[in-house]
């Protein structure tokens, strides 16, 4: 039974290489492949309305951003309170091109994958710059340094004439092999584009975590002095963690700019930074798939509470003003409850579920 990679239930590794493999069993790999196929097929079978497609696209973009935040905060232990600013750097890189060469320039409309990549690199650059204090600062001090970046970013954009002082800078529709992506297919097109990018980045991170650079992140998080003693460079590791987080955020920002066909400062505020942090916590800090659970949970919760608020507003007297309180209350409550009762996030529920299904019906 031990060698059966379809049904293995225990730890039968005989080499480090085996332990590092991406999928533990063939069943895992098959299940994942089926899941991926479903992700690509379902919109064609059950086409959702634009509203829900927009919500789903948003979840995927948030997942890209939280993937980066999880690298810095979850794996490297560096609290970042300015993640939305890095997302903003990516978005404003696209806006920079729109302002410089025109929002309908072929570079923006046809070479959009390159724009997304460049936005990622811009995010990485600023991530590394902001990460530099990490060479000297730790814990709360570092958190405040990232908060400062958030404030500087917001202030700079708000006062730069070049970026229209934070007003919306438009970006034209993109082109694909089939021609211009029309309004009708806009959200579906970006669903597939974001999904492909997310899968690629997910595999990239998964593979990174299998390398010594990935293990460095975890070692520095757990004890940077011990990591130093073992020959790692904690300072550089922290800077590259920030750069990587910035890259993911930059990509997410460019995707946001293309999805919304414009960039405005409102989408990259401190509140958004806190929301990304909440997504990472609710999903599960330091877990790869927590980066997917968190955004889905928070965005769906927001939509759910919005519907409840609307219903409550129509039933209850206006003087109770319940709708004003319900959204922030539910958001805060979810964070507190997760921190108290499930600090490992939804990812832990997934782990328990998987262990249960792997063992059931007690094959060992």
């Amino acid at each position, binding site marked *: 039974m031990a060698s059966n990679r379809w049904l293995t239930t225990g730890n039968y590794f005989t080499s480090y290489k085996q332990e590092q493999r991406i999928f533990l069993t063939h069943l895992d790999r098959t299940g994942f492949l089926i899941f991926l196929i479903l992700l690509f097929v379902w919109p064609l079978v059950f086409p959702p*309305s*634009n*509203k829900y497609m*927009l*919500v789903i696209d*948003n979840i995927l973009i948030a997942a890209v951003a939280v993937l980066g935040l999880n690298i810095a905060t979850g794996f490297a232990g560096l609290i970042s309170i300015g993640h939305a600013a890095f997302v903003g750097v990516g978005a404003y890189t696209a806006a920079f091109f729109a302002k410089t060469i025109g929002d309908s320039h072929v570079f923006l409309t046809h070479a959009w994958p390159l724009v997304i990549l460049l936005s990622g690199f811009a995010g990485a650059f600023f991530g590394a710059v902001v990460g530099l204090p990490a060479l000297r600062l730790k814990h709360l001090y570092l958190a405040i340094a990232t908060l400062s970046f958030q404030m500087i970013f917001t202030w700079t954009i*708000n006062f730069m004439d070049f970026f*229209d*002082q*934070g*007003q*919306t800078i*438009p970006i034209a529709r993109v082109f694909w092999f089939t021609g211009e992506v029309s*309004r009708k297919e806009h*959200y579906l097109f970006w669903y597939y584009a974001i999904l492909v990018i997310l899968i690629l980045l997910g595999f990239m991170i998964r593979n990174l975590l299998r390398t010594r650079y990935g293990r460095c992140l975890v070692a520095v998080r757990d004890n940077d002095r011990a990591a130093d003693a073992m020959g790692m460079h904690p300072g550089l590791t922290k800077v590259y963690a920030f750069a990587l987080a910035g890259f993911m955020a930059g990509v997410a920002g460019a995707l946001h700019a293309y999805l*919304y*066909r*414009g960039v*405005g400062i*409102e*989408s990259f505020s401190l509140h958004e930074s806190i929301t990304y942090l909440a997504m990472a916590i609710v999903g599960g800090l330091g877990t790869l798939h927590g980066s997917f659970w968190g955004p889905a949970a928070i965005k769906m919760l927001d939509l759910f509470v*919005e519907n409840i*608020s*609307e219903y409550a*507003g129509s039933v209850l007297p206006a003087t109770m003003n319940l*709708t*004003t309180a319900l*959204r922030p209350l539910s958001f805060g409550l979810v964070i507190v409850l997760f921190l108290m009762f499930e600090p490992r996030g939804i990812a832990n529920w997934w782990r328990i579920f998987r262990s249960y299904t792997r063992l059931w019906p007690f094959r060992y």
Partner: protein
Amino acid sequence: MKQNKIKFISIMVSAAVIISFSCSVHAGQTYKLALSLAITGPTSDAGNPYAKGVEDYFKYVNDNKLLGDDIIECTIRDDQYKTDVTKRNFEEFLDNGIVFYLNYSTGSTLALKQDFEEEKIPVIPASFHAGNLVDSNYIFLPIASYSAQCIGLAEYVAAHHKGGGIPKAAMFIHPSAFGRGPVEDVEKAVKAGLNMEIVEVTEHGKDLDNTAMLQRFISKGVQYVITQTIQSPVATLLKDANRLGLAAKSFGEEGKLTFLGAHYTGGNDLIALAGPAAENFFWTTSYTLTSEPGPGTDMQLALAKKYGRDDKAANSHNYTNGIMAAQVAAECIIRAKAKGSKITRETLYNELLAMNGDNAFKLDTTVGPVTYSKTDHEGVDNLQLYSVQNGVFKSVGKPFSPEYSKKIK
């Protein structure tokens, strides 16, 4: 047995006839409209009564059968002043098949401008930002833009300044597109010959004390402060000026500061926030106020009473603002129906464009008629100046149209 069968058939036939008749009674059409705005969150003090105004007027249209058997169904959603949420709401409204859209903030109006163009849907926002109209065919401002309002205030300053020399003014603005919009246009008006000097433009934060700024204004010889923001920072400003003894007791009092403001700076909420410090605050808008009774305000108060609104909402100029936007939308439908046109986005858009000359929409909630055309997307061109006298806003002079806002175009 046979008799029972006949009885059964006759009952079924009668039921079918009754149902078909009752169906024809309710055979009217439903026109879907929508509004997304900040009912909660930032600027909800304006958005909340605005939403009530829209809701109540459409209820009134339906209850009084102003469209015959047809009814207006207006979905109102709270976006908490977040552009992302507004976009999501708008997509949902489009899925529902709306023919007319009411939007709210400057940020979201600018962000959705391209969508409005592509969807060819007429839009009336609650934002009077002149920039909304740039490269746009489908956005229609209900009243004169913030720029026109600030220029109107500047013209009043220039015309009524006492003492010698050029009147010196400062602009106290909101740190956003909403606040910054008019600055450039007022500066253009000054360059075009308006007899006024803008000494300083200040973007406010969330300051609780403006002493240093006010002293600086005085030291620079500033006599007038034109505000383009929301009520709470203006209230703080007025209270500080009063505390320091710097507030003018009458317009243009020498050595003191006279405060003036555009639409969202004033109204009853300002008086509630600033108390006696609001006295002599000059304010401009195109709406009629309940402190100056007339047919429009009577209708407004009756509407608020009919739908159970409290005094605060009933007397709010933002409630008037919502009613007026709904009135324009409903009027387009009424006019299109009168012509026998099918109610579509296109026909309603054409009705808006035709709203001028003899077709201008004269309504009592504003101080002038609503006029639109291919080249004019600002509804009411007239403004009324008000000032706080004994705790209420009272008219100052007659409605006017700012001259320089046309000159600088």
